[in-house]
């Protein structure tokens, strides 16, 4: 806590020994701003992917579909039998036969709105809602095969798994990208700090000559780079946030339909400048002590 207060309060004696401007100042500002911008976008993408994965998992895990493809004269009897079986099965919360009009809407994207639905022999579809841990799928499938041979139970597993995997993969990719951004930020700021320290070699020589301890010298550089990185990251994060808020208005594809931050997730973009400051602090400190170890 004391260290944090010292960092915020600063040390005017230490700070004024470092020239106030320079190429490395702008480099740090731009690099941290750009990295924060990317970090906020990737955070938004990762969090959206995570939410999407949860939604798909929840929605598809709690429903199933029974498809009955039978000749017209036996179709209704098999539907009735399937509904009876389902109503007796523990773990089934509800059933609903999907009417032909609704099936026509589902097929419309492929066959158009004027599909002569009555002229087609469509299978009967029964939407099944599961409750609790769901039914014993193996047992239910065997019973359906025995009592309604035309009925096929689809528990959505083959749809759900790849979609959830894809969304989780996107989430993992986002986390990896964030890690890489943190590393690149650290390396960039360490290089900028090293360049600043090298450019101020005479300052360091003079300070060592008059009896400055290493922590006095590093304090001057570390605070400056930390605040500069935090400032640049705050600007980059703010610009990214504005754009993230605007994205849903211009995109309507599945993965971005929920793009952005929701609820407590807003804390993450706010933490980006803080993370940039922490990274800058340690990167500059590392670079400073490394440089100072070369000076007697």
């Amino acid at each position: 806590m004391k260290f944090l207060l010292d960092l915020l309060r600063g040390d005017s004696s230490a700070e004024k020994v470092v020239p106030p401007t320079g190429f490395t100042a702008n480099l740090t500002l731009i690099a941290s701003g750009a990295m924060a911008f990317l970090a906020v976008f990737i955070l938004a993408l990762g969090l959206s992917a995570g939410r999407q994965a949860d939604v798909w998992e929840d929605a598809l895990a709690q429903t199933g579909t029974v498809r009955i493809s039978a000749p017209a004269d036996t179709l209704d009897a098999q539907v009735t039998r399937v509904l009876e079986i389902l109503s007796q099965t523990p773990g089934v919360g509800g059933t609903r036969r999907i009417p032909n009009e609704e099936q026509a809407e589902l097929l419309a994207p492929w066959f158009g709105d004027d599909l002569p639905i009555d002229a087609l022999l469509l299978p009967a579809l029964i939407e099944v809602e599961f409750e609790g841990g769901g039914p014993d799928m193996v047992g239910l499938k065997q019973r359906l095969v025995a009592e309604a041979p035309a009925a096929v139970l689809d528990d959505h597993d083959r749809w759900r798994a790849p979609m959830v995997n894809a969304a989780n993969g996107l989430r993992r990719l986002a986390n990896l990208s964030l890690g890489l951004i943190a590393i690149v930020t650290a390396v960039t700021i360490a290089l900028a700090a090293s360049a600043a320290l090298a450019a101020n070699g005479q300052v360091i020589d003079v300070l060592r000559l008059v009896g400055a301890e290493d922590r006095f010298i590093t304090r001057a550089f570390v605070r400056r780079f930390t605040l500069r990185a935090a400032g640049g990251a705050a600007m980059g994060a703010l610009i990214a946030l504005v754009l993230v808020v605007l994205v849903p208005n211009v995109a309507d594809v599945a993965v971005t339909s929920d793009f952005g931050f929701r609820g407590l997730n807003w804390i993450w973009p706010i933490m980006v400048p803080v993370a940039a400051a922490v990274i800058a602090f340690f990167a500059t400190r590392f670079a400073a002590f490394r440089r100072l170890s070369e000076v007697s």
Partner: protein
Amino acid sequence: MRQKRRGMTDTGAIELYSVAMDYGGRTLFRDVTFALKPGSFHFLTGPSGAGKTTLIKLCYGELTASEGRVLAFGEDTTHMDRDAIAQMRRRIGVVHQDCRFIDHLSVAENVLLPISVTGQAPSDAEANLAELMGWVGLESLSNHLPPELSGGERQRAALARAVIMSPDVVLADEPTGNVDWEMSLRILSLLIELNKLGKTILCATHDMSLIRQAKSRVSARVLRLRDGRVELAGAEL
């Protein structure tokens, strides 16, 4: 003012025992042994390249001896960590021939640096600063930047910076190397005044006439670096 300070041994403020220094693949000097007694005034002389600057740097821990021991205030500098070296340097004022400063700070701020780095508020030393700047004749240049100073002014500013902490020892490496004779005498006078205040002085110079000037005013010993060894110069000086 002539009082025994912390770490001062009876033998010396700075002591070198059998010191050898290899530099760039050759031996600069070997078996160098001498002690700067508290309050003493020594000149270090010798031809260019003999190792005067290296010897000065050994005394304040900027370089480490290849062999032998260097003691500063009774402590072996070889075994000091970086913070201890920094603490030791606060008791040693150093003036180099090239007088390095922090160019974006004013002369006054540069002179106050040894106080700033200790964490003390420079404002506490304002009175001392004014007196010191008057002593070295730079009171009107306090707010100037170092690049605006002449060679002699830089030397005097460096001397003011070296003594603002009232160090026990002042090491001056060719402090008159870049100035005219009149300025050399003025700088010499300042060093003699410091010595009279009880400071231990080691002044490296190749200027024999300066040493003769000093010997008429102060009890100074002359160490001569020759053929890789240090010897006490005799009456020929």
